[in-house]
C-alpha cells in the first residue's frame, strides 16, 4: 500500500510541477466557466413563470378568474392596459363576464415573447388551463347562484373542486442553468481532459524513460505499479475537481447540493477516466497524439454529455446518443443532486453505469498497460 501511494504521489508531484499546470488546471477551465456560465445564465425575472394579466373585463368574473390563477408557481402581474414589453401576457376581454353569464363561447389570448423561457411558459399555460377548468366546473355545479356568496357561507366547500394536472412523465419543469450547471460541467470536462492528457502522456514518458521497468527491479509487483499509476491519475482528477470547486465557491457562490453525493459522482467519474488514461497512454506512442485525442475526446464527450449546455434541452434522439458519453451520466447525476435535490437512490443507476464504464476501461488498461517500449 505504501508503495502504491509512493508511486501515485510522484505522478501528482510531476503534474503540479509541469510548466503548463496553472494554465490547464485553473486558467483554461475558468475561461470555460465564464463563457458557458454567462451563455446559459437563467433569466432570473422569468424563473417563476411570470404572467402578466390584462384584465379588461367589465363584469365581476374576470377578477374571480384571476383569483383562480393564483398559485405559488406563478408570478401574477395584473393590469388593465397592455404594457410595451411583455414576456407572456393573458388578455381577459371586456365582455368576459357577459359571455360567461349568457353562456356564449369566448376566446382568451395568451401572448408570448419569443425569448420567453419555454418551461416557465408550460407552467403558466398549465395553470391557465387549470383555472379555466375550475371556473367552469364551479359554474356547472353551482350554476345560477352567486358562487362567491355560496363559498363565503359554506367554507368547507371551498376546495370541493380541485384540479390536479399531471405533466407527462419526464417533463422537465426546471432546466439546470447558470454557474451551478456550468461549473460541474467544466469539472467533468476537465477531469476528462486533464486525466487523459497528463495521465496518458506520463504513461508514455515513463515508458520512454524506462522508469516503470526500473520500478519493477525493486520488490514492487506489477499490481502495485498498476495501482500506483491508477491512484496517481485518480488524485490528478480529484485535484482538478477540488481546484474548480474552491474557485466556484469563492467566485460564483457554487452550490453543489449534497456535497457527499456530488463528491461521489466526481470520484466514480474520475476513476473511469484514470483507467482510460492508462489505456490511452499505453496504446498511443506520441505525446502530440495523446494530447490531440484527449482534447478531442474531452470536448466531444463534454458537448455530447451535457457539460456545455444542459442535456435536458437536447432533442430526445441526440440524448440517446449522448448516453455513450460517461460525461452524460456524471452530469445527469449532478443535476439530480444539485437542481432536483435527489438522493443516493436516484443517482445510483448513474453511479453503476459509470462503474460499468470503469470496468471496461480497467480491463482495457490492464490488458494493454505498456511498461517498456
Amino acid at each position, binding site marked *: 500500500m505504501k508503495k502504491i501511494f509512493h508511486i501515485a504521489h*510522484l505522478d501528482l508531484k*510531476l503534474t503540479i510541477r509541469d510548466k503548463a499546470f496553472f494554465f490547464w488546471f485553473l486558467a483554461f477551465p475558468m475561461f470555460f466557466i465564464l463563457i458557458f456560465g454567462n451563455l446559459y445564465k437563467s433569466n432570473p425575472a422569468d424563473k417563476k413563470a411570470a404572467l402578466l394579466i390584462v384584465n379588461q373585463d367589465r363584469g365581476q368574473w374576470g377578477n374571480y378568474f384571476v383569483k383562480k390563477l393564483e398559485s405559488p408557481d406563478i408570478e401574477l402581474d395584473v393590469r388593465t392596459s397592455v404594457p410595451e414589453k411583455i414576456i407572456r401576457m393573458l388578455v381577459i376581454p371586456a365582455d368576459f363576464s357577459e359571455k360567461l353569464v349568457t353562456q356564449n363561447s369566448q376566446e382568451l389570448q395568451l401572448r408570448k415573447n419569443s425569448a420567453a423561457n419555454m418551461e416557465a411558459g408550460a407552467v403558466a399555460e398549465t395553470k391557465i388551463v387549470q383555472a379555466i377548468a375550475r371556473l367552469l366546473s364551479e359554474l356547472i355545479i353551482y350554476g345560477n347562484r352567486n358562487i362567491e356568496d355560496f363559498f363565503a357561507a359554506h367554507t368547507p366547500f371551498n376546495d370541493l373542486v380541485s384540479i390536479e394536472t399531471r405533466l407527462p412523465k419526464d417533463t422537465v419543469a426546471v432546466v439546470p442553468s447558470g454557474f451551478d450547471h456550468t461549473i460541474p460541467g467544466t469539472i467533468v470536462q476537465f477531469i476528462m481532459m486533464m486525466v487523459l492528457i497528463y495521465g496518458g502522456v506520463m504513461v508514455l514518458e515513463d515508458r520512454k524513460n*524506462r522508469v516503470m521497468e*526500473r520500478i519493477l527491479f525493486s520488490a514492487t509487483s506489477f499490481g502495485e505499479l498498476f495501482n500506483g499509476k491508477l491512484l496517481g491519475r485518480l488524485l490528478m482528477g480529484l485535484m482538478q475537481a477540488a481546484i474548480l470547486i474552491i474557485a466556484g465557491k469563492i467566485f460564483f457562490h457554487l452550490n453543489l447540493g449534497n456535497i457527499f453525493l456530488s463528491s461521489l459522482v466526481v470520484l466514480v467519474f474520475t476513476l473511469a477516466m484514470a483507467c482510460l488514461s492508462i489505456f490511452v497512454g499505453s496504446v498511443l506512442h506520441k505525446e502530440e497524439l495523446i494530447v490531440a485525442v484527449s482534447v478531442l475526446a474531452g470536448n466531444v464527450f463534454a458537448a455530447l454529455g451535457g457539460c456545455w449546455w444542459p442535456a435536458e434541452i437536447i432533442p430526445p434522439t441526440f440524448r440517446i446518443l449522448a448516453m455513450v458519453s460517461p460525461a452524460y451520466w456524471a452530469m445527469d447525476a449532478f443535476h439530480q443532486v444539485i437542481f432536483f435535490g435527489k438522493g443516493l437512490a436516484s443517482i445510483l443507476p448513474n453511479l453503476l453505469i459509470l462503474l460499468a464504464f470503469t470496468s471496461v476501461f480497467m480491463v482495457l488498461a490492464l490488458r494493454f498497460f505498456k511498461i517498456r517500449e
Partner: protein
Amino acid sequence: MQPPILEIKNLSKAYDHGKNPALVNFSLGLNKGEVLGLLGPNGAGKTTLISILSGTLRDFSGSVVFKGMDLFADRQLRNQIGIVPQEMAFYEELGAMENLMFWGGLYSIPEKELKKRAQDLLALVELSSRAKEPIKKFSGGMKRRLNVAIGLIHQPELLLLDEPTVGIDVQAKVSILDIIRQVGLQGTTVVFTTHQLAEVEQTCSRIAIMDKGIILAQGTLNELIRIVGEKDIVIVSGEFSADRFSDAIKPLIHNDIEILSITDNEAHLAFANSEGIPGMMQHLFQQHVSLADLKIKSPNLEAVFLKLTGRSLRD
C-alpha cells in the same frame, strides 16, 4: 569454502519464437565479494542476461539461485539486488536528490536514513553540488553516474551493471570504473558487463568472456592470458583480403605460428618464438601480399578474446 552468492545454471533464452537464441545453456557462479567483469561483443547476450536476472524478462529456461534460494520465487529477494540498466532510467524532470529519494522510497528505508544514504551516494558519484538541478540538464557522464547511484540506494548485496560506461567520454568512464571499484571494496558483489577490454583488465577480480550466449572462458586476468600461452602477438596490416592472406599464410602454419584472426587488411597471429617473424615476412613478400604495418605485442586479453571468438572487440 562458502557457497556462491549467485549460481546461474543452464540459462537459455531465445527471441522471435525460438529462432533467435540469445543465451544458450549459460552457466556462471559468483562468489561473495568479487567483482566480475562480463566481457562480450555487441549481441553476445549480456543485456538479455541482466534483464533475466532483474526479473523483467520472462520465458527462459534454466535456474538462478541467489543465496540458496530460487531468485524468481520471492519478490522480496529483489531488495538485496541492485540493477543498473544499460539504458539510463530515471525521472529527467526531477533533481538527483529527488530521484534518489523516490527510488529509495520503493524499499522500506526510514526517511532519515534514506536521506543520509542519498547524500552519501551523491558524494560518491560526485554530484553533491548539483543535487537539486533537474537531471535533464546533466551531461551524459553525470547521468551515467546517477544511474549507478540509483542502483545502490538500497545498499544491495549484489550489484548488476549493464554496460555502465557506454557512450561517455574517457574521463567519465574512469570515474564510473572507480565507483565500481569502491563499491567492490565495501564488500558488495558486483557483476558488470562491457565490451571494453581495458575496463575489465583494470577493474575486475575475475573476468568471464562470453559470445553468442555462452561463456567461453573465465578466470583472473593471468589465468586467461595463459590460454594463448607465452606467445608474442603479431598484428599485420596491409592491402589484402582475408582470403588472400589465409591462402598465403597456410604453408607456415605449424606449432610455432597460430592464427588468431584474419580479416580484410588485418591479421592477428601468435608466435611461440619471435625469431620466426622475419621468415614470415619474407614468405608473404614472395606471395605478393603487401604489408603496410606490423606490431608485436606481449600476450594480452585482446589476444585471448581473438583466439576464443575469432573477432575483434572494437566494433
